[in-house]
C-alpha cells in the first residue's frame, strides 16, 4: 500500500489560515489501512482544526467527507456539492488525492494534510516499512525475493557494502536491516549463493521516475 503520515496540525492551520470554511476529504484506500487518512482520521483532524481556530477566536467551519478512493475521478465527484462554498479542500489521501481534487476543481485551493512516505507494508501494529520504489522493472526474483533498490540505502546491485555490520546497515544507527545480508542468507538457504558470484550489471532506470512521469496504458481495458 501507499503509506502516509499526518502533517503537523500547525502546518495545516498555516496553510488554511485565511479560510472560513474547508472540506477535509479522506480516502478509504491505503491511507485508511495505515491509519492516516480514513474516516476516523478525517473526524479527528476536523475536530483539531475547529478547536484550534475556536481557541484563536477565529471559528472555522469544517465539512467532513471520506471518498471511496481519491485516485479515481468518479470517486472525487461526491465532493462537487461540498466544495461549492468552501474556501479550500484539505485532502488526507496520499498525494494522488489532492492532485485529483485540484484537477477537478480549478478554482478551489487544495492542500495536502499528509506526507506520503512510501510504498510499503505493516511490520507490526503501528510500524510500517518501505518495500518498493516503483522502479518499473522488478528484479527481486534475482535476489531471493528481496529488493536491493528500495531496501539498500545505496541501491547497490552488488552488496553488501563495507558498512554492513551484524546484519544492520550503517545508515540508520542500527535500525535498518542490511537487505544485502538478508539476500545473502536467503540465497544461502535456497542453495543459490552462486547467483551472487557474478557481477550484476547496470540497471536500466528509464522505466523508473528517471524516465519522466509514467503513464500505463492497457488497450484491452480502454474499449
Amino acid at each position, binding site marked *: 500500500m501507499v503509506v502516509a503520515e499526518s502533517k503537523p496540525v500547525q502546518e495545516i492551520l498555516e496553510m488554511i489560515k485565511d479560510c472560513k470554511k474547508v472540506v477535509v476529504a479522506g480516502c478509504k484506500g491505503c491511507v485508511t489501512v495505515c491509519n492516516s487518512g480514513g474516516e476516523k482520521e478525517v473526524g479527528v483532524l476536523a475536530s483539531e482544526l475547529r478547536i484550534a481556530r475556536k481557541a484563536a477566536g477565529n471559528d472555522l467551519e469544517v465539512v467532513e467527507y471520506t471518498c471511496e478512493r481519491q485516485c479515481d475521478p468518479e470517486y472525487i465527484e461526491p465532493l462537487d456539492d461540498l466544495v461549492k462554498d468552501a474556501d479550500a479542500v484539505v485532502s488526507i489521501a496520499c498525494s494522488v488525492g489532492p492532485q485529483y481534487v485540484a484537477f477537478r476543481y480549478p478554482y478551489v485551493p487544495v492542500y495536502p494534510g499528509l506526507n506520503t512516505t512510501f510504498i510499503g507494508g505493516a511490520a507490526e501494529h503501528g510500524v510500517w516499512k518501505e518495500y518498493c520504489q516503483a522502479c518499473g522493472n522488478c528484479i527481486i526474483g534475482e535476489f531471493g525475493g528481496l529488493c536491493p533498490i528500495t531496501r539498500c540505502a545505496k541501491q547497490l546491485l552488488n*552488496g*553488501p557494502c563495507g558498512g554492513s*555490520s551484524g546484519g544492520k546497515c550503517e545508515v540508520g544507527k542500527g535500525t535498518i536491516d542490511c537487505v544485502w545480508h538478508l539476500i545473502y542468507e536467503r540465497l544461502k538457504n535456497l542453495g543459490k549463493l552462486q547467483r551472487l558470484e557474478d*557481477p550484476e550489471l*547496470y540497471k536500466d532506470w528509464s522505466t523508473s521516475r528517471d524516465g519522466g512521469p509514467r503513464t500505463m496504458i492497457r488497450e484491452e481495458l480502454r474499449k
Partner: protein
Amino acid sequence: MTMTAGSNLEKIFKAGHKAITCECGPPRGADVEHFRHKASFLKGYGDAVNVTDNQTAVVRFCSLAACRVLMDMGIEPVMQMVTRDMNRIGLQSNVLGAAALGIKNLLCLTGDHQSFGDHPQAKNVFDLDSTNLLDCVRVMRDEGKMISGTELEGKPAMFIGAAANPFADPFEFRVIRMAKKITAGAQFIQTQCIYDMDRFSKFMETANDMGLTEKCYIMAGITPLKSVGMANYMKKFVPGLLVPDEYITRLKGVPKDKQAQEGIKIAQEQIQQCLEMKGIAGIHLMAIEWEERVPEILEGTPLHPRPKVD
C-alpha cells in the same frame, strides 16, 4: 597480467616490487597551498598517492583537480571516484577527462552515504555501484565503448582499482565480493584499514585459495593510530572496524605525549606483518590528516627507499 595504463604504480607491481600508496584528502575549501603542503610530505614515499573524492560525503575540492595539482608536483595520483554524486553520464565524462589530463590510476568506489556528511539533505545518485563503475571503466579502456555501446574516440588508459572491507559482514562473503570486483575490472585492491590481523589473514588465505592474488594486486590498508582516543573512536563509531584491545592497551600504557610514537610503532609492525602475508602486493597507508608523519613511518619499514621502474 599485461600492462594496461603504464602508470608508475602498475609498473612497480609488474616489476615484482611491493608497492606503497599513500592518501591525501583535498581541503574543505579552495586552499590549494594547504593541499600542496600536505602532499609534499608524500613525494618520494608513495609510488602513487590516492586523492579522495568528497570522502565521508563531506564537500572538498574535487578529486580531478587535486590529481592535477599532484601531477604538477611530480606525484602520481590515484584518482578516487564515487558513484554517489554522479550518474553514468557524469562518471564516464570524468573518466575521459581524467585520462585527457594524464591520470592513469583510478579507484572506483560507491562512496559513503550522504547522511554521514555535511549535506545530509542532498539527493544521492547511485545510478551505478562500484562494481558497475569497474566494469564501465574496463570496457571503456579495453573495448573503447561506453555503457550505451557508443564507440569512444580514444580509449582511457586506466589502471583500475577497487576497495575491499574484509571486516564487514557477512564475513564469508567478503572475499566473494572482492572476487566480483576483480571480475568486473579491478586490477588492484586497497583494503579498509586493518587492525584485526587474525581476521585479515583468514581473508587473505581465502583470497589465495581462490586464486585471486594471481589475478589482482592486493594492498593492505593501514591507518596509524594517533592516540588512544582515535583508537576508541574507530572501534566504537566506524562500522565494521575492529580494533583489538591489544592495541588500545599498548596506547594506554604510554604517557599521552608518547602515544603518537607508539601508534607509529604499531603501524610499522602491522606493515611488516602484512608484507609477510602470502599474496600481499603492497601497502595502502592512510595517514588521515597526518601526512607529515608518513616519511617517519615508512623509513622504519622495508618500503623505503622506493625502487625506480621504467
